């Protein structure tokens, strides 16, 4: 992979400060090798990647593995609280984490748009590398393609992750039972509104930061506490409403939420109000939904709150028997409504 840069012939180093992605960076030729060697490798460096083969040779592991994949498109590429790079790591790490798995390896594929400044790409790669190190995962293989100007949004990143499932952990979407309690690890809608506030230039909402974060640590403490966890999910695209409807469908149950118990930051609520959106449908990138046995609810809440990523956790409702599998909510006013699947495409693309 880095052979060309070590060749004895003089090769002018990549001009990261002023250069831009061009079609040759996806051609499979020397320019691509140089991009990988000088821009990506230093940020992701690990023994598997350093071998420079087409694929990564990984050690055998005992027990079951979990694999998850996530594609990331976001505009703007950089937003308060993060960027597409760390998002691409957290997204896949979280998909593994909510299965109860310990994430280990990632692959990363980049689709770059001609004209993307190399400095921006480096910033993104750096952020990915940092997020991977913090999450204890290695980016072991990847790919790069370049599309013509106008055919991409700067950069798209697809990541696939592999993790190990500890003995005895069974966390799947079909295990919610009537009576179970529903918890969230913190305020909802931060990520989606951080992006939307940027895009719509909402001055008053500029303080909103994306919540993008790796959740496997939070999940691990919950697992260690011995709480009877039925289901875990990260409510990303489509927000809490979509996630709960998915679980209700998988488990064949209904739910009843308390609107007044659902944490939403005032700035997020205000920005949603302004844009005519419902925070329950806005994306999160660092929040956990946990459904736990009723007798363990208070303990689960205490465990979540003791962790930095869960200090604003709350119990927001309960699972109930319902042949129609409706997710319902008692509104702040005291009336009732359905919290339905998102229909149509009211939200611009945000994750």
């Amino acid at each position: 992979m880095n052979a060309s840069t070590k060749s004895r012939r003089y090769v002018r180093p990549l001009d990261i400060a002023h250069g831009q992605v061009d079609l040759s960076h996806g051609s499979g030729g020397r320019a691509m090798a140089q991009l990988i060697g000088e821009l990506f490798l230093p940020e992701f460096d690990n023994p598997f990647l350093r071998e420079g083969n087409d694929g990564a040779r990984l050690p055998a592991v005992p027990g079951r593995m979990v694999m998850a994949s996530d594609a990331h498109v976001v505009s703007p590429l950089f937003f308060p609280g993060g960027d597409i790079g760390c998002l691409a790591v957290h997204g896949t790490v979280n998909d593994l984490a909510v299965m109860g798995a310990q994430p280990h390896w990632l692959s990363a594929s980049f689709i770059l748009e001609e004209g993307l400044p190399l400095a921006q790409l480096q910033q993104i790669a750096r952020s990915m590398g940092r997020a991977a190190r913090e999450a204890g995962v290695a980016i072991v293989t990847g790919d790069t393609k370049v599309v013509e100007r106008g055919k991409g949004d700067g950069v798209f990143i697809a990541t696939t992750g592999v993790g190990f499932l500890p003995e005895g952990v069974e966390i799947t979407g079909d295990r919610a039972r009537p009576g179970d309690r529903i918890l969230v690890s913190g305020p909802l809608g931060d990520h989606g509104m951080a992006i939307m506030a940027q895009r719509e230039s909402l001055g008053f909402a500029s303080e909103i930061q994306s919540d993008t974060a790796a959740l496997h640590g939070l999940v691990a403490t919950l697992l260690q506490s011995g709480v009877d966890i039925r289901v875990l999910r990260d409510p990303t695209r489509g927000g809490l409403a979509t996630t709960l409807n998915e679980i209700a469908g998988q488990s064949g149950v209904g739910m009843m939420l308390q609107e007044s118990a659902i944490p939403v930051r005032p700035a997020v609520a205000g920005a949603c109000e302004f844009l005519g959106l419902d925070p329950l449908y806005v994306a999160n990138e660092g929040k956990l939904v946990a459904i736990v046995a009723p007798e363990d609810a208070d303990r689960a809440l205490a465990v979540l709150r003791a962790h930095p990523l869960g200090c604003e956790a709350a119990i927001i409702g309960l699972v109930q028997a319902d042949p129609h599998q409706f997710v319902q909510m008692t509104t702040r006013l005291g009336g009732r409504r359905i919290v339905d699947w998102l229909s149509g495409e009211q939200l611009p693309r945000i994750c």
Partner: protein
Amino acid sequence: MKYVDEFRDATLAQNLARAIAAEVKPDCEYHFMEFCGGHTHAISRYGVTDLLPPNVHLIHGPGCPVCVLPVGRLDMAIKLALAHEVTLCTYADTLRVPASGGMSLMKARARGADIRMVYSAADALSLAQQQPEKQVVFFAIGFETTTPPTAVVIRQAAALGLPNFSVLCCHVLTPPAMRRILEAPPDALALDGLIGPAHVSTIIGSRPYEFIAEAYRKPVVIAGFEPLDVMQAILMLVRQCREGRAEVENEFTRAVTREGNRKAQHLMDEVFELRDEFEWRGLGTIPHSALKIRARYEQFDAERRFTLAFQPVADHRSCDCGAILRGVKHPRECVLFANVCTPESPMGACMVSSEGACAAHYTYGRFRDMEKPA
């Protein structure tokens, strides 16, 4: 956003609920229509009906701009985009409304039509400035709330002498639609009062509703779009009924006066004039119920520039949108509701717009149909 929360406070809501319960006569049935889709949405979104006594019934009105747009008008917009190859700028709500021949603006877009979603008339105007080589048409729909901004862009286009900008004007007026509703025979629609529009009234004021109290002897209370506004308005309507009054009252005094916004009215008057008649979806053809662009701005009138003619189109046979828009049926009474017709595959406009009665009932309230069958 403390301001907003004040209008959604649970304690205030409970107090209002108690006041309404104390005010209604137990042996009376009360039927109030909320004219506006904005109210319909708020009522469903906050479950307001759960806080009302069982003998207070809310009827959804026709005040949803997309819902009252006849199919023929959508066809005109689609024709502009496909046959005349203009850049058509439209509010997002219109995109998925079914038009004739299984088409919609969304499907036209998939076939290559240049259709852009805009948040305001001003967005359409700036697009026309950015691409002078292409004709840009703004698909202008809505009641009196969205009309002044359309007037503004037409005036600006005239001042700039923009040759590539025009407007497909489908703006409609609230009072004639209310009159049409009130003309319905009482056995078709029992009506004891109206919750009047919020945003529309900020423009036209409360005076244009006075005929309702005078000629039809029905109380009107103009209300804001927050759920507590609606509850307060219901309380005021119940009081009027109890005291035998029929007056236009204003709950939304923080934004509405009797005279309305004079400046906006003058602006509208300068750019638009009354159409002799206009076909509404569900309400039929109503004289003097819509606006067209005045002759002095005719070069910005897409109907003239592209010589478009309106062709009436019949609705789907089983679709009850018409009856729902007139208030004589509830969404659950449509045979297509929630089986053939859902927000994902809407048969009628009422299932598309978030202000549509069918969409609001489907999205927020359909669990009630399971609890107590209609």
